[in-house]
């Protein structure tokens, strides 16, 4: 009797946990099934797709044009900066050489 009482209690608890878990799982499955879109058996034009399935074109277009303008501008700036640096160095060296030839 001492052994049977805890065993019975354990079986009752295990049974209740199992049934509640299986009920929750089947509920989740049912929810997933409810969220699944209806299967279509015919062609659907892209313009008739729901909004969440359509990819907007404007951000892609704006990104492409912005990228071109920014990259070209950055490159022109980079060449200008390098050119200014080299020209300053050329002027400095030319003045150094001129000073040296005078002395």
């Amino acid at each position, binding site marked *: 009797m001492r052994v049977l009482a805890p065993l019975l209690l354990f079986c009752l608890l295990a049974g209740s946990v199992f049934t509640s878990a299986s009920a929750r799982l089947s509920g989740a499955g049912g929810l997933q099934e409810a969220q699944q879109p209806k299967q279509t058996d015919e062609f659907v034009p892209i313009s008739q797709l729901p909004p969440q399935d359509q*990819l907007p*074109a*404007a951000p*892609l*277009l704006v*990104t*492409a*044009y912005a*990228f*071109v303008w920014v*990259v*070209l501008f950055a*490159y*022109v700036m980079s*060449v200008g900066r*390098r*050119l200014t640096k*080299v*020209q300053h*160095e*050329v002027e400095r*060296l*030319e003045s*150094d*050489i001129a000073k*040296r030839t005078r002395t």
Partner: protein
Amino acid sequence: MPKWFAPLAVVTAVMFAASPFLIANAPYEATMGLVQKIFYYHLPSAWVFLMSAIVCGIASARFLFGGSPRQDRLAHAAAELTVLFGAIVLVTGPLWARKAWGVWWQWDVRLTSSLMGWMVAWAYLLVRKYGGPGSDKLAAGLALFGMANVPFVYISVNYWRTIHPATSVVPTLPVDMGLALWFAVVCFLLLFVLLLRLRVYLEEQRTRLDGLYLSLDE
């Protein structure tokens, strides 16, 4: 800098500023819609990318077989522009493809060979920068390889089954689309000429600087 540089720069800047208006007024393509307008910058930059690789290759060949430092400077400048315009092609293309094809990238022959040409131009610049003495000739060899890749990039879409449109698209464009496209092509060509001249001038100044350092050491 030559006398034509400043007026041509002004003309190019005005044309570039006007190009978005012309492109916006061009008709919508029936199947792709708005995103197809990326085409008006994508295609001209692709042509300039390939042209730049050819200029780099021809100048490198003349440097290798003639030894002219002027050709070497031209090749160096063209390689940098190949990287620049290649970057534009390889970024605008996937942005268009994401909407039109449903994927950012596809390892088909046109896209892969373009990427390879771009990487060859990068290799040219890296060899020039970190290769040490003799790297100019090694880089010139790379540029020849990059130039040999150009016809392959261009005709690949006509010979292999690929997701990329074939070269027959441009002649079949309606007038309004063609006008916007050719306007953008002229913009990119003028820009290429200007940037190439500016970049060659930078190399000339660097050569002058090296000469001054040598004369200072003597």
